[in-house]
Structures are given as structure tokens and as C-alpha cells.
């Protein structure tokens, strides 16, 4: 069992380019999440999905979009990357997707640099 996988591991991207970060989990968890982690700011929620077919906005959704076509995959897309989106991106999943929120399990992260 792999848990949560993310791809790519790292990426350098020119500003203005479109980029999709991939996230796949094999635990059949209902809920999935995308966070960005920046030094001094901790983990900030970008978007989440409580179940396949639904998505919601987190704390910092602007410039990002997500889709949840099935249980396992939760891609994050930057339509037109900007340097301020340089960060480490973590995908996570949890079993309940609602109340009470269950433990979230994190992927290894994607380090994205936008030049």
C-alpha cells in the first residue's frame, strides 16, 4: 500500500505557464486536501474535497483550481503560475470527510519554483 503519492517531486516553472500537481491515494479515503507550506506561515489550506464530485475553497484558493472526478485522485492546477506560488505543496486525505474530522495523512510533497 503506497498511501498518498504526489507528482512531480519538484518542478521549476516559468511564470505564466500552466501546471498540474498530481495526488493519488489508495486508502479509499473520502476527503482530500491541498496545502501549501511556506516558511513562517505553516500549512495553509488551498482547496479540499469531502467526497468525490465535491470541492471547497480553503484559506488561500486564488490562482488554484481542483477537481475530484473519483475517490483516488485530486489534482491541483495552477492556470497561470506566478512567483508567489513558489512553495511546497502537500496533498492529504482523511477517512471521514466531515464531522468529526478524522486524522489527515499527508503525501511527501511537491516543491514548486516559479521563476
Amino acid at each position, binding site marked *: 500500500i503506497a498511501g*498518498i503519492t504526489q507528482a512531480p517531486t519538484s518542478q521549476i516553472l516559468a511564470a505564466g505557464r500552466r501546471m498540474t500537481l498530481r495526488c493519488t491515494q489508495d486508502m479509499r479515503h473520502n476527503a482530500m*486536501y491541498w*496545502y501549501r507550506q511556506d516558511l*513562517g*506561515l*505553516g*500549512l*495553509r*489550506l488551498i482547496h*479540499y474535497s*469531502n467526497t468525490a464530485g465535491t470541492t*471547497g475553497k*480553503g484559506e488561500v484558493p486564488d490562482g488554484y483550481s481542483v477537481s475530484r472526478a473519483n475517490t483516488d485522485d485530486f489534482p491541483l492546477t495552477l492556470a497561470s503560475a506566478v512567483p508567489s506560488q513558489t512553495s511546497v505543496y*502537500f496533498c*492529504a486525505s482523511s477517512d471521514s470527510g*466531515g*464531522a*468529526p*474530522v478524522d*486524522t*489527515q*495523512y*499527508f*503525501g*511527501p*510533497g511537491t516543491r514548486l519554483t516559479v521563476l
Partner: protein
Amino acid sequence: GESVGLHLPTLSVQEGDNSIINCAYSNSASDYFIWYKQESGKGPQFIIDIRSNMDKRQGQRVTVLLNKTVKHLSLQIAATQPGDSAVYFCAENMAGNTPLVFGKGTRLSVIA
């Protein structure tokens, strides 16, 4: 707005000593709290959780204490080891369909 925060951004502890990492929360409606450990270059890893109907919960070498009166959460690590060196995050959640809110993290450095 409501937020989760930490008292100390860094903590240095001698190997073998006990570590205490603190976290303050301001949302009195929060009823679920989690501690995560994040090693360099890795994603956060679940350590221990506690619900608001408890004051204390123990795991292997770790104890979480919850003081709802002063909205304070702490993580105690017994006999700290070099492998405990990491950044530790607390997170809170309110009952209902709301995502976790994470604190900014405390870096624990273990001195051999």
C-alpha cells in the same frame, strides 16, 4: 479571526530530557486537536490526537494535555531522542464540516 498559534517557534532539548511543546488556540468551539511531526523534506506525520471531552491522552513516549479553560494544548515527549528532531504542528477542528486549522509550527532540536 480565530486562529491556532504556538508560544515558542524553536526549542532545544538535551537528549534524554523531556520536551514540552505548547500551543494556544482561540476558538472555544474547537473539539478536536491533533499534533503532527514533520521531518526535513517530508510531509507531516500524525503523532497523537485528543478530543475536547478529554484532558489528557498518552501514546508511546508522547502525552497530549488539553486545558480548555485557558485554551491551551501541549505535547510532551519523554526521553527525547535525536530522531525526535523535527517541526511539530498542532491543529484544531470544530465539529461539523470544517477543515483542520494548523498552527505555524515549533522546531525541536535535540542536542546529543
